[in-house]
């Protein structure tokens, strides 16, 4: 059973998160401070962590950076709504994903599972990818959706491949733009919007109510399994 470290200074939240984790089949270990969290991490008994950014003894962002300097353990950040910049900063520093308070338990488990899948993958770039109804052969540039072949332009393919490799984790707009268009275009968000639209027209059952490629306003895109 995977052991997940919950770092939150609020006892009721620790209790709630532990309950959600146990319901999802994880073992929960809860601590109240950054200091205790670092001790737990040092003992190497942790498979993933849920980190509240508002800890009393250390800045959450700084802590992500410190952990990432030595460890690639999955980190899902728990944050308040409205802090768009804080979420992006956390993702940029290497957090795998975030949930917003007040969060939904199932959503939290889904985020945690895809973060763990990322960590569990061998690191080699598989050429056969799948997510929900999507199948991709990255080498042959072939995509099927609900078992039907879909013709994609190179940009559309590149964006979809990045999202499928993220495997349900969020990719910031800037990260997607950099991967597909290059560093010079990290602010050209309209490129991305146009390509995502085209993808939706080809992949979504109702392109005006997308359920597969989801946007989080101000942050980025992720794939969601509509099933």
């Amino acid at each position, binding site marked *: 059973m995977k052991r997940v470290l919950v770092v939150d200074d*609020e006892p*009721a*939240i620790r209790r*709630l998160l532990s*309950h*959600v984790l146990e319901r999802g089949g994880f073992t929960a270990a809860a601590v109240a401070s950054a200091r205790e969290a670092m001790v737990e991490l040092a003992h190497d008994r942790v498979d993933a962590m849920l980190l509240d950014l*508002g800890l009393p003894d250390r800045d959450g962002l700084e802590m992500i950076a410190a952990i990432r300097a030595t460890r690639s353990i999955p980190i899902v950040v728990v944050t*308040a*709504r*409205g*802090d*768009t910049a804080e979420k992006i900063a956390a993702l940029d520093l290497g957090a795998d994903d975030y949930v917003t*308070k*007040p*969060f*939904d*338990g199932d959503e939290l488990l889904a985020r945690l599972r895809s973060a763990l899948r990322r960590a569990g993958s061998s690191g080699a770039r598989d050429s056969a990818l799948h997510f929900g109804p999507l199948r991709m052969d990255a080498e042959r540039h072939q995509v099927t959706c609900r078992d039907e072949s879909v013709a994609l332009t190179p940009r559309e393919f590149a964006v979809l491949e990045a999202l499928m490799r993220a495997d349900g984790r969020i990719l910031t707009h800037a990260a997607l733009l950099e991967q597909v268009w290059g560093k010079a275009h990290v602010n050209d*968000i*309209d*490129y991305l*919007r*146009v390509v*995502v*639209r085209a993808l*939706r*027209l080809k992949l979504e059952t109702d*392109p*005006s*109510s*997308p359920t597969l490629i*989801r*946007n*989080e*306003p*101000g942050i980025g895109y992720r794939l969601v399994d509509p099933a």
Partner: protein
Amino acid sequence: MRGTSASYLLAVTAVVIVAAVTSVWLQLLGTASAALLFLLPVLLVAPRGGVGPALTAAAGGALAYNFFLLPPRFTFRVHGLDNLVSVFVLFAVALVMSRLATALKTREAEAEARASANAAAAEFSALLGKGEPLDAVDNALAWLGRDYGEARIVAFDRFSEQQETGFSTLDLSAAAWAMHNGDRTGHGTAIMPAAEWTFLPMSLRHRASTDLLALARPAGGETRNELELTQVQALARLLGQARDRSALDEARRERERLEDRDAFRRTLLASLAHDFRTPLTVVTGELAKLADTDEGAAQALMAARRLDRMMDDLVGAARIESGALSPRSEATDLIDIVADVREALGEIPASIRLVQQVGATLPLIEADPVLLRHILINLIDNAIRHARSTVEIGARAAGQSVEIIVRDDGPGIPADDRARIFERFARVEGGDRSGGSGLGLAIARGFADAMGMTIAAEEEGGGGGRFRLAVPAWKTDLR
């Protein structure tokens, strides 16, 4: 005056004494030595009494010498050139001595005046540097009042209000002149000397507009002299500098106060956004565990989620209020926003159907996606609370913009209320069924304004409420 008559008396007395002494001992002294002794009264009187008493002593001495000592004695007849020379020398010495003495005295008086002016300036400076700047200025004015006559400050920026305060028309003209030209005017000066007050600029001449020190005419009808004017002018400049310093201090304090208030607001906002959500997360999380099996818990969960949206509204209102909004402007797909809004609204009452008519091929729009999301949540939440059975969100391209329409089949908004409902805590009479925050539409308007969008409540054909939000279309070419 008294000093001068005393000098004349001294002159006469000294001459009488010398005349008496020389008369008695004439045989012993001889006339030449006796003549020399008559220089003594002149030397004695000249430094103190000046030219008048000195000449008196000289004339008296000459007469007495002539009358009592020069043969023929006890007559004023003069025999011989040497006697005439004695009298002439006596006069010449008297004149030179008294001139010298007067020059010395003038210089001494000037030095004294300078010293007293310096002492006054030093005392004045000390007074201005002591205590609170405003008190110090008052103390300095009182000090001037004691030494120079009633003193006031005429402030440039409040000049029009001060016109009633005991100045005559001539005084006011003099003040206006001094203010705008930087000259000293009024009593004792060359400009409008008939005025009752003297007006002295408090800042340097090159400044176009200056506050003034007004000094009342000295009591007893005396005219204020140039020396005193120069002295007071220096004090007026000191006063001006002190006031400038106090204005700077005041500005600094005001800035610090504003910064404190902003810091408080930011802290409050952060605390609302952050700390309040933690207990709310516990409430929704615990309720969510029960909601599947317990209808009451499901209702409570919906209420808690509404509370969360109200928190968003409160934070939004505070951001609008404090001017802390700095909207981003980025290419945005309305489809994304609407999908996210529907998810954020969560479960809606079973009696309400939410219809979405937003085409997947509308132009991209230019907006701050987070603010636009909040506007749409509030419009749809408002519509759900007023609808009978249906809420519809639609959008269409209209020239350079995209119009978003949110409508419901509720009672609608009376024409008179359509502008008012965007005010905070506005309620339509008899129209509101259940509690919103009372801020929702005000925030929609505030955010729309911040992004340069227009929002309006409109007439809906078949009754019901209808809101139109016009959002600019994304302008650059789509590549």
